[in-house]
């Protein structure tokens, strides 16, 4: 762990006295060397501030940041072995592509002096790495968004930092280009073996690229785990609803042992579900159901296996999404609605207004206490 980055109880408040707002609140993170970590959250959740704290552009109000085993809390930006790729790319508009990329090699705090042939060789090497085919004599304003992104990346990588920080770098690209750049970034990460810390509000981006995701909300890390973990095993309602299309049904715990809980739904369905979190009898909990795990069938048609959770509902909305169909169904006799994804290859389709039964296998649910 000592070669990575550690955040210990890091707090960053802006403003003074009574007006102080904690943008980052007691954040603890351990990032192993070579990992691709994504800080995921909505705007204003503190993810960018956390990144800027790691970079050294901000200093924490309290807490400690350690890097490669030493305390870097008060070490200035230039002395941390990290480079940042900015949201607006921050390419120097008065320099062409070549000079932009070479910048880190030419400034006085470069690790050593590079001869001009060496500079050209490295610039070419890194432009190849990011697959920029444009002439290096072009100016930034002559490049497309995706090309600027590549230049910014090459500029950050050329000084061979051990950590590269990304502040929503793909935010301003169109969807198709964003996808291509995601693949690209992942390839470069694998190729270089550096630690990447990536900030985004796009859950798909986070799930696709990361080794680890820290889901943030209101300045706190709500869950920290692999993409599979935060998707399949969210630890709270926030994470469940932020990542993927999740539904949460209100439930009451009737009894529970370590492995199973007997719960009662609002429609009086009673049954056992896995106790994914410790529960107490009488406690109100949320039951998470992923949109793609629920099944729809016509009302009162033959039910599935025993123990399957069944709720009655009416189809309120049907959205054709290409590979799947998204149904919004309103629960009968209780508030709320569910979003359900059915593969478009499935034969049976439903129309708005149809009465349906929703089947959910208990093992596909998770109890969310918080």
């Amino acid at each position, binding site marked *: 762990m000592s070669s990575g980055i550690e955040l210990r109880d890091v707090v960053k408040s802006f403003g003074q006295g009574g007006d102080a707002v904690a943008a980052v609140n007691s954040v603890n993170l351990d990032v192993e060397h070579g990992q691709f970590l994504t800080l995921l959250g909505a705007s204003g959740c503190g993810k960018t501030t956390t990144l800027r704290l790691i970079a050294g552009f901000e200093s924490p109000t309290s807490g400690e940041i350690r890097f490669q085993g030493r305390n870097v809390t008060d070490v200035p930006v230039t002395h941390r072995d990290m*480079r940042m790729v*900015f949201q607006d790319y*921050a390419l120097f508009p008065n*320099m062409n592509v070549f000079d932009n990329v070479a910048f880190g090699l030419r400034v*006085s705090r*470069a690790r050593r002096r590079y001869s001009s042939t060496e500079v050209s060789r490295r610039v070419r090497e890194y432009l190849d790495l990011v697959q920029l085919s444009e002439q290096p004599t072009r100016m930034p304003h002559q490049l497309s968004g995706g090309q600027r992104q590549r230049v910014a990346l090459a500029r950050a990588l050329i000084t061979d930092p051990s950590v590269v920080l990304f502040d929503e770098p793909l935010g301003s690209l169109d969807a198709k280009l964003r996808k291509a750049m995601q693949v690209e970034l992942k390839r470069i990460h694998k190729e270089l073996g550096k630690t990447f810390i990536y900030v985004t509000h796009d859950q798909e981006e986070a799930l696709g690229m990361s080794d680890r995701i820290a889901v943030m909300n209101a300045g706190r890390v709500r869950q920290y785990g692999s993409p599979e973990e935060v998707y399949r095993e969210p630890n709270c309602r926030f994470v469940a609803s932020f990542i993927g299309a999740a539904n949460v049904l209100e439930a009451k715990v009737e009894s529970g042992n370590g492995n199973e809980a007997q719960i009662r739904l609002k429609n009086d369905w009673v049954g056992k579900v896995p106790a994914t979190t410790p529960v107490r009898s009488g406690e109100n909990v949320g039951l998470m159901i992923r949109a793609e795990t629920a099944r729809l069938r016509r009302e009162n048609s033959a039910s599935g296996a025993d123990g399957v959770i069944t709720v009655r509902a009416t189809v309120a909305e049907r959205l054709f999404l290409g590979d799947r169909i998204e149904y919004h169904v309103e629960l009968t006799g209780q508030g709320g609605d569910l979003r359900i994804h059915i593969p478009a290859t499935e034969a049976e389709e439903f129309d708005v207004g149809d009465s349906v039964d929703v089947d959910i296998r208990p093992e596909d649910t998770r109890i969310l206490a918080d």
Partner: protein
Amino acid sequence: MLFWLAPPILWFTVFMLVPYAMLFYYSLGSVNYVTFEPGFSAANFIKVFTTQPYLGVMLKSAKLGLMTAIFTSILAYPVAFCLAFYAPAGRAKNFLYMLVIVPWWASYLVKAYAWKTILGSHGLINQLLLNTGIISHPLTFLLYNEFSVALTLTYIFTPFAILSIYSQLERIPVSLIEGARDLGATGWQIFYKIVFPISVPGILAGAVITFSLAFGDFISPALVGGPNSIMISNIVINLLGRAFDWPLAAAIGLVIIGMATALITVANHIERRLTVRL
């Protein structure tokens, strides 16, 4: 569309085109004693370029204009820089901004006259030096010369340069500076490799404004200038008011306008070439 364009077109015609045409008409004529006689002769223009003191004073005015442009730029840059990068947004910044603009609330005459009371032989500086015993006779080189004219012009026109440079510096996104810092650049390197090159068009634009204003000025030379520091506008005023040589005054005016237009065109061209697209 035409409805909205009518007032400016009318304004431009009545107060710009017509006067210029009249100026041109006068410049081709001549004066017999105090009566204007229309004509079609380039004699006045030839006179401007061949007879002293006209050409010499014009060059001297240009020199003073250039000095003013250089001094204001040097003074304005640090102020604009602080305003753009060091003044925390909000009250402090507004206050600084106000300090730059406040001198404009005072009349030009008052400001020029103020320098007289500072630099004169009974002025602030001399009194201070006399009272402290550093000198025994008042210094006379402070006032009524080119130096005092350049100083006054610089003082009066510096805000133009500040605002012009500031508007350019303000465009620079913070991320550029952070990016350079992140890549290991020192403060000085960030300045001369990134900030300064981007701000050059602002300096140039400010310099053109201050040069033009100083070049055509007649109040400062009249108040704080000496016999050797009259400027071309003072000569024009004398030709109009005392010598009644309107044709020659018109010719000088047109030459000045021509020079200014040429200067602005060249400066604009350079500015456009140096402007960095963000």
